[in-house]
């Protein structure tokens, strides 16, 4: 187990550097990093040259990348366009996005798995068909449309929620945004659970459990669900990273000041340091989430042993 973790961590290194380098190149080479440093105004040539030198932008790109990464490992993510430290932005943005992600994951687990179990056990019945069509519709409607609609109906017309989230972003204000963020994954979790349940319900060990005279509820929770949830847990785990990175749209609609909001601002103002810094952390979260999922797999399925 220990050796497996180490091997996986080693494998993550090239992926981590590859992904961050890619983003670094895109932002640095194709864009104009100086533009962002002068705030909203255009820089005059002299200031630009001076800033170039100050930030080491006159050096080759690979050197810039190495310098940047060196700084990152000492905890220095640089400065954002408004002079704020990027780490400060992170300290305010990440807790918000993490709360939003938690809400989304809770929706996926509670609603997605329940619907999946219900439909998986009633394959071909009206409720199954209805939920299947619903999931297709949810998958088909882009998140930003779902978000705008819910905001319009719940926030503007019915006034159940406030259409924009306050800057503290407490959990209760994040319920609907979390649902919007989760919506597509929620549909996938439902379908995945349904397929998995339906397949396992025909398994021999379920028949054995019935022959043992176990109550139906116990057969479903203890025998069927334990086996069926293995692929679902994998999906949800992998989704954590994706949700945090994909929160941009949701955060924009509901005006949530999280990671997506800061990234969006960073991109609009071409603040290299903000963008690369946030993306670096997101890639790291994504890779770690994948690793944890792999390890969880071994816990859920005793047949899997990592060497």
């Amino acid at each position: 187990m220990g050796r497996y973790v180490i091997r996986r961590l080693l494998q993550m290194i090239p992926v981590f550097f590859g992904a961050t380098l890619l983003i670094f190149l895109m932002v640095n080479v194709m864009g104009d990093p100086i533009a962002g440093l002068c705030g909203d105004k255009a820089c005059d040539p002299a200031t630009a040259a001076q800033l170039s030198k100050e930030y080491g932008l006159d050096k080759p790109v690979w050197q810039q990348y190495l310098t940047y990464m060196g700084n990152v490992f000492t905890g220095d993510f640089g400065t954002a366009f408004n002079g704020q430290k990027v780490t400060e932005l992170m300290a305010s943005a990440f807790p918000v996005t993490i709360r939003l992600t938690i809400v989304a994951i809770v929706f996926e687990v509670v609603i997605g798995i329940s619907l999946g179990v219900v439909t998986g056990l009633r394959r071909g019945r009206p409720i199954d068909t209805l939920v299947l069509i619903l999931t297709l519709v949810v998958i088909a409607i882009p998140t930003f449309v779902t978000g705008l609609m819910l905001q319009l109906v719940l926030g503007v017309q019915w006034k159940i929620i406030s259409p924009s989230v306050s800057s503290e972003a407490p959990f209760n204000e994040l319920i609907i945004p979390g649902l919007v963020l989760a919506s597509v994954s929620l549909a996938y979790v439902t379908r995945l659970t349904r397929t998995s349940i339906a397949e396992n319900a025909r398994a021999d060990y379920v028949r054995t459990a019935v022959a043992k005279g176990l109550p139906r509820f116990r057969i479903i929770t203890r025998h069927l669900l334990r086996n069926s949830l293995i692929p679902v847990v994998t999906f949800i785990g992998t989704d954590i990273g994706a949700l945090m990175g994909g929160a941009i749209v949701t955060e924009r609609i509901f005006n949530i000041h999280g990671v997506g909001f800061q990234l969006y601002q960073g991109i609009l103002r071409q603040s290299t340091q903000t963008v690369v810094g946030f993306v670096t952390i997101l890639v790291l979260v994504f890779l770690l989430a994948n690793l944890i999922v792999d390890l969880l797999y071994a816990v859920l399925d005793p047949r899997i042993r990592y060497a």
Partner: protein
Amino acid sequence: MLLEVRDLHVEFHTRDGVAKAVNGVNYSVAEGETLAVLGESGSGKSVTAQAVMGILDMPPGKISSGEILFKDQDLLKLKGEERRKIRGQEMAMIFQDALSSLNPVLSVGEQIGELFTVHRGMSRKDAKAKAVELMDRVRIPAAKERVGQYPHQFSGGMRQRIMIAMALALEPSLIIADEPTTALDVTVQAQVMDLLAELQRELNMGLILITHDLGVVADVADKIAVMYAGRIVETSPVHEIYKAPAHPYTKGLLQSIPRLDQKGQELYAIKGLPPNLLRIPPGCAFNPRCPMAQDVCRTDVPPLAQVSETRQSACHFWKETLDAR
């Protein structure tokens, strides 16, 4: 009588039509008695057993008529919850493929123990102790250490012993073993079969042994019911059937057992294939494959005729079959 199946009919409704899997089966098992149900795959032997256990998949399966009397009550008239309480406690089942029949993600101790926690309301700790006790009883070495292991960590024979331990756990009065040794190596087969027979004697249980292998049956069974296309074609005490079968199908089965004294001869095989259950031939279902078939066999279903006090055969020509030896 411990168990009596009376005129049981089971159908499967499929996309291609109605498959008549069981067509009027009668059999009975007394306490301490072993009934071997013999037949090819598709003969309805497993479906009958599943109907008795109450684990038939419904739909597509459907019990269209019949009675299953267990200790003089008709199981088919019981409510779901009453039926459930009989399963595991009063009757238990051993399946063919222990690897797929055991839950891969629960330890064998949990799987044996849950019978005690669910049916007897025992604590998990006591149930675990019981599981160790049972594993000892089916002679799994180092039971105490292995109780927390998972099915894939056991060998095929050991897994089947775990299935047996599970079936015996609550000391039921009837055990149904569906091809319990088919998936095992030949040497292990004998050990598992002996163990099963021994425990059955000890606990004085009724045993229904479903198999397609006549060789397995001879040593353990008291009586045999041979099934073909969802019907019983012959019933007999075990020794008499070996001496003189009263149905051409049984005869064919016996002739296709390899024997040491017939070295060099070609092994006999029943020609043709088992019938399609969607289109069972009219008359005697065996007629297309029967060497003795006459016109009457193609039109009239042969009734189960009393051959002797203890024997029955569903063949128009059972006398001729008996005499042909």
